[in-house]
């Protein structure tokens, strides 16, 4: 039973005035999301939940005018935050924005489902927020950022030219995979597979030397 200490934390938090909840900084929210992602921290998630759930509920109630649908939106959104926090990347925007886009997508799908449309386009097709493929390289990026470039410099030079050029443009010059694909005039799929292969190879070389 880990419930008791958490409850105490919640209550303390609930009792703070709305003014002080506003003072939660982007950095703090990012840290909480990172804790949820890395160690499934229930405490961190509870704090996120206490911050976002009432706001989501107020937003959704106004949008739908229906308590139950509003609650569904809160639950679906926060369930994704709990299970998919690893897909959040601070480079792309703030936690607030990320959670808003999840809620926006869920609302979009609820509204379209209500029209009984079959085989419909989903919000995720239009605004990919939770698709795994999209953030594959971001996740790898986050992992590999921790390794200093000097440390891997030697390994990096051992990569085949085609892979090294792609890695250099993405990780050193900070270009997106799409930009690299456009500039080198090679298909996006090729950029992705070269990135994947190169990162895999780098990882192997690093672990072999550990």
């Amino acid at each position, binding site marked *: 039973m880990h419930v008791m200490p958490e409850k105490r934390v919640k209550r303390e938090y609930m009792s703070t005035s709305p003014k002080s909840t506003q003072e939660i900084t982007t950095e703090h929210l990012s840290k909480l999301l990172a804790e949820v992602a890395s160690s499934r921290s229930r405490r961190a998630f509870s704090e996120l939940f206490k911050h976002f759930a009432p706001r989501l509920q107020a937003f959704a109630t106004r949008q739908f005018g229906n308590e139950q649908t509003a609650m569904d939106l809160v639950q679906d959104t926060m369930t994704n935050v709990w299970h998919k926090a690893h897909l959040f990347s601070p480079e792309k925007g703030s936690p607030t924005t990320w959670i808003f886009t999840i809620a926006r997508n869920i609302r979009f799908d609820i509204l379209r489902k209500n029209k009984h449309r079959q085989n419909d386009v989903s919000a995720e097709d239009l605004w990919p927020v939770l698709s795994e493929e999209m953030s594959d390289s971001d996740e790898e990026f986050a992992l590999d950022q921790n390794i200093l470039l000097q440390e891997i410099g030697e390994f990096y030079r051992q990569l085949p030219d085609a892979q090294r050029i792609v890695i250099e443009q993405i990780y050193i010059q900070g270009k997106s995979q*799409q930009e690299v694909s456009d500039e080198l005039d090679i298909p*996006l799929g090729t950029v992705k597979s070269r990135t994947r292969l190169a990162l895999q190879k780098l990882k192997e070389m690093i672990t072999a030397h550990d």
Partner: protein
Amino acid sequence: MIKFHPTEELLVKYVQGELDASLCLVIGTHIDMCPVCANTVKDIEEQVARSVFINELQGSASATPAQLPEAEMNMMLEQIISSHAPEKIVREPALEEITLEGKQFKLPPTLGRLGSRLGHWSKVPGSVWRAPVNLSGHDKINLIYMAAGASVPEHTHRGSEATLVLNGSFADEFDCYEDGDFIFLDQQHKHTPQTAQEDCLTLAWLNEPLQFTSGVARLLNPFSNLFFR
């Protein structure tokens, strides 16, 4: 250099998810092609999110009757923590390009993700081809390919028309449009799109059929749904 962009009002509605999915597709594809709008959309997202999450609670203190009771909140929290992870969303690879008349056209990612919904090409009068992007709903969206020297007869719209140039250029009475340009027209505009030396591939969204307005082309009106199905 992209000259024509969606209005800020349209971008805000896009971010809020207030537009029809098919119009979102056209705007999303423009954003793929246009770094200026991509930046604007990022800003709008931040602003809209902040207004939802920061102002919402204060604004609603009097507006919405009951905040969630704490007990219910705690129950939901427990349910979420003990819930199974939602299924991973793994998407099929996007369609990267299409071939038309022996020419290859790259598709921007937003359009490519819906590549499996691209229907068959058919010819319409005036060296013009169209293929529907099949999304359910009332509004229609087509890829339209005009060969060099092609024209669509002068027409107006009972509703609105959004056109995005994917590749090439076309002109009408108002201007000349090139890669990435986004043109939004309503009932008040009559125009005659045509290509010159260069061919042109566009993504076109309509919420009502076209209405042809000049000469013999008026005969086409019974068939104006050529572009609307």
